[in-house]
């Protein structure tokens, strides 16, 4: 059984069910990220773990103890809020030790714990200040200090970085990851930012409309998304979805793409599995990550499943490290990720290399992945 176990948990507000039968098992020391669009129920699930929201159905347990109905302060959890939620009338030191005081920890012990945490987060010189006298990044640190000082079983983070500017957000992200590695803490972390999810987590739960869409390691989520929602939500720019027709050709399975003027291109599937063969002559959606569609020189030279195709360049957007090029494939605009010095002129014909090893296929009706 997992360290933190969520079994069949549902949540309703009145007659509206906002979370449907959530099942997640988190091991000790894991960094689980709940990611999904705004309003999908991430905060609600986190608040249910914290005990700030009741559980309508199912069970949540921590270290084997069922937590349904247990008061938040008795769950041995700590939470970092999006707004930091620092008590405005207390100093930094009082903010950090308030929880210990409420739990009846002796003053000398509180001071020792405060010193340790302040040293760890390098906020020793801020201890006498009020929250209003701190910068955003400093407030963030204090909020983390308040969580760390409790030495809880599980840390809960609700979009802790979304109020910081871009540069600080990247720095704090690295710092949170480092803290996790150093302390080996068990963390459940909510964000709507898929890059945060990919970089921080040991496992990701992608959520949409109150359901877990996929639960897996960042690699699994990125390379083998279980449906179109996960495929397009994770990754930036998002995955290209091209309508193709399946054609079985002996041992091979070909994806036929309709190009301009009735021309058709055949792309050989890397894994010609039975599920694909069964769809001979039918339409599927081919999913291609931008980095799997590139210029010929930039293509993965080790892969033997690179297909070449000609297409007209739409817009070229140099982004420093790469150049993003749009082109129409199968009647939809696709984004290709090319080397920064790839020479492409808008309106001209260019040769693209498509790595079929990285391509996936979805059922156009259900949106589920076939291969």
């Amino acid at each position, binding site marked *: 059984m997992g360290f933190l176990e969520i079994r069949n948990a549902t949540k309703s507000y009145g007659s509206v069910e906002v979370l449907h039968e959530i099942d997640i098992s988190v091991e000790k020391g894991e960094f689980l990220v709940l990611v999904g669009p705004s309003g999908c129920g991430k905060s609600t699930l986190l608040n249910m773990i914290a005990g700030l929201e009741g559980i309508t159905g199912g069970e949540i347990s921590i270290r084997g103890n069922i937590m349904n109905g247990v008061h938040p302060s008795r769950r041995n959890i700590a939470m970092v809020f999006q707004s930091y939620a620092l*008590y405005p*009338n207390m100093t930094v030191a009082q903010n950090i030790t308030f929880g210990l005081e409420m739990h009846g920890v002796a003053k000398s012990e509180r001071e020792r714990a405060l010193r340790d945490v302040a040293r760890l987060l390098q906020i020793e010189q801020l201890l006498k200040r009020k929250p209003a006298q701190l910068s955003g990044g400093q407030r963030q640190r204090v909020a983390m200090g308040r969580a760390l000082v409790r030495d809880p079983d599980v840390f809960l983070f609700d979009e802790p970085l979304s109020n910081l500017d871009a540069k600080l957000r990247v720095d704090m992200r690295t710092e949170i990851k480092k803290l996790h590695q150093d302390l080996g803490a068990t963390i459940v972390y909510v964000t709507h930012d898929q890059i945060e999810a990919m970089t921080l987590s040991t496992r990701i739960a992608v959520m949409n409309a109150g359901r877990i869409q996929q639960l897996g390691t960042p690699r699994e989520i990125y390379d083998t998304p279980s449906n179109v929602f996960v495929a397009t939500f994770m990754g930036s720019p998002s995955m290209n979805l091209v309508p193709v027709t399946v054609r079985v050709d002996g041992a091979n399975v070909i994806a036929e793409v309709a190009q301009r003027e009735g021309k058709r291109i055949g792309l050989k599937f890397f894994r010609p599995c039975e599920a694909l063969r069964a769809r001979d002559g039918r339409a599927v959606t081919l999913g291609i990550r931008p980095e799997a569609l590139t210029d010929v020189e930039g293509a993965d030279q080790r892969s033997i499943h690179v297909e070449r195709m000609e297409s007209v360049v739409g817009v070229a957007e140099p982004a420093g490290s790469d150049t993003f090029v749009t082109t129409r494939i199968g009647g939809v605009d696709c984004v290709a990720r090319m080397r920064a010095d790839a020479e492409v002129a808008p309106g001209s014909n260019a040769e693209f290399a498509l790595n079929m090893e990285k391509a996936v296929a979805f059922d156009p009706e259900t949106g589920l992945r076939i291969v």
Partner: protein
Amino acid sequence: MDTAVRTGNVARTFIYLTLLLFALFYMLPLFVMLVNSVKPLSEITGGNMMSFPEVWTLDPWRDAWSKAQVGVQATGLRPYFWNSIKMVVPAVAISTVMGALNGYVLTKWRFRYDTILFGFMLFACFIPFQIVLIPMARVLGLAGIAGTTSGLVLVHVVYGLGFTTLYFRNYYAAFPTELVRAAQIDGAGFFRIFWRILLPSSGPIIVVSVIWQFTNIWNDFLFGASFADFDSQPMTVALNNLVQSSTGVQEYNVHFAGAIYAALPTLLVYVVAGRYFVRGLMAGSVKG
């Protein structure tokens, strides 16, 4: 920083003159009260109400405070002043604390139909005084506190609760709920969160509530006249008796001094806390 809109000199002069005029108009009664309260009566009856005294005297003030005939006894206003204090202080304190608790519950411990309940509480702000007189007299009688200062305290607390609840509810609606949740996780209970987290941040709205309640209760005449006995009458009722009851000559100078005594505490509260008043009124008004 100067954020005012620029105007021409002519317009500016006109504005200042108008403001000055209105200021004078409002100051005039106070001026009349002050100068006449330090004159011998003969100067007033002699007909110069508007001029400065020829002979300065503090006797009217002394008389009004401790010697003048109020009702049937010649006690001055002093005992009634203390009656008012004994009524105002607990009534303001209780209604403010209860309003704060109500606001806290209505915003941070929400329950089914809480907005409807709040709507009913707001009725208290609009019910005319006269309507409650008879039911209230009955309630005070049943509770055995008719004609006492405690009875008046109860009346004013009940009547003020609608206002204080409104103030604190709107103020706490803008207070981040995440702070309450953080405190819950930290292990603080219902009252501890109120006492340690919300109340220390409630300065401006406490000032608003105190000023509002203090002025209303201190200046109330109707409840005082209706529910007080002779020995619990507040200042306002006593002032009326002072003015009405003088059997012989009307001692206008004493009346003026008495009226200033009656107005002094509210003036004092405004001077001490007034600048927080507007700030506090504005604070909760953005969200709500």
